[in-house]
């Protein structure tokens, strides 16, 4: 039953990391948008510019890449099982 326990707790741990990385990535994006507005744009509504930029971010490749948080450890574990036992 070890494999089920690893699956459940591993998934929970990765879910926490996924949320944390998502928050971090969004925060970095917002900071970048703020800086761009402060230094280059300087005209129009600052909040609207930032909201607009974050909406673009929602559909971006970088946001989708955060799913690798789940993919990479799963692949690594499967690879380790193979290398340790059948290689």
């Amino acid at each position, binding site marked *: 039953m*070890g*494999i089920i*326990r690893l699956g459940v707790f591993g998934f929970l741990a990765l879910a926490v990391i996924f949320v944390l990385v998502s928050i*971090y990535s969004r925060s970095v994006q917002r900071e970048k948008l703020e800086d761009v507005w402060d230094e280059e744009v300087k005209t129009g509504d600052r909040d609207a510019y930032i909201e607009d930029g974050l909406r673009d971010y929602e559909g971006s490749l970088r946001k989708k890449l955060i799913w690798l948080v789940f993919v990479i450890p799963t692949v690594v*574990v499967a690879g380790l*099982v193979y290398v*340790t*036992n059948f290689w």
Partner: protein
Amino acid sequence: MHYVKWTFRMLLVTFVFSIFHYTLVQHDIVRVTNTEVRRIDFGQNSIFWASADTGSDGTTANRDVRFIEAFYYTGKPMVYRNEDTGFGWPPYFKLDSSNLQAEARDLVSSKDAPGWVSISHYGWRNEFLSIYPNAVGIKAVSGPDVRIIPWVNIVILLTLTILILMFRRMWLQFRERSIDPVLEDVGEASDVARSHATGLWGRVTGWLGTWRSKP
């Protein structure tokens, strides 16, 4: 206070180092002389044993454990246990103890015609606790002086360093964006509080300071 701080740090570093030293893979060049199975009654040393074969009943008080007996080039003996780690700690995902035992049996050699093998393992041999390193893999090598580069450990330690730096950055970003603005709003009160208590350690030293006799 200085000494308390450094003792605490040294203990922490020793503890972390011990965990890595126990868990990371190491390679011994040895000559295998025998393989055997012994029944082990786990006692105070039970934390230093892995798990029963995957799929079998792991709740029994004792069980048979496979052992591999070997000698170094120097003539010093070393005994390895050969247990499944299954899907638990440490994460070797070793399920093939029986196969490994067969390979080890196949590589047995005599003193007169030594066949050198590299046994990868984790764990410690300690006579006081009767604990043994757990063999993970075995392969024949050309001689007792081959050089083995620990690629696995290099990759693991590099990855861990990168992850730690990543989480540090994430924490700094969170503090800069979410905690500092709040503290700035609180105003001068926070400056006073922070000059006294910088982090957890500051609070501990602050508390210890209250026990000191006033001059």
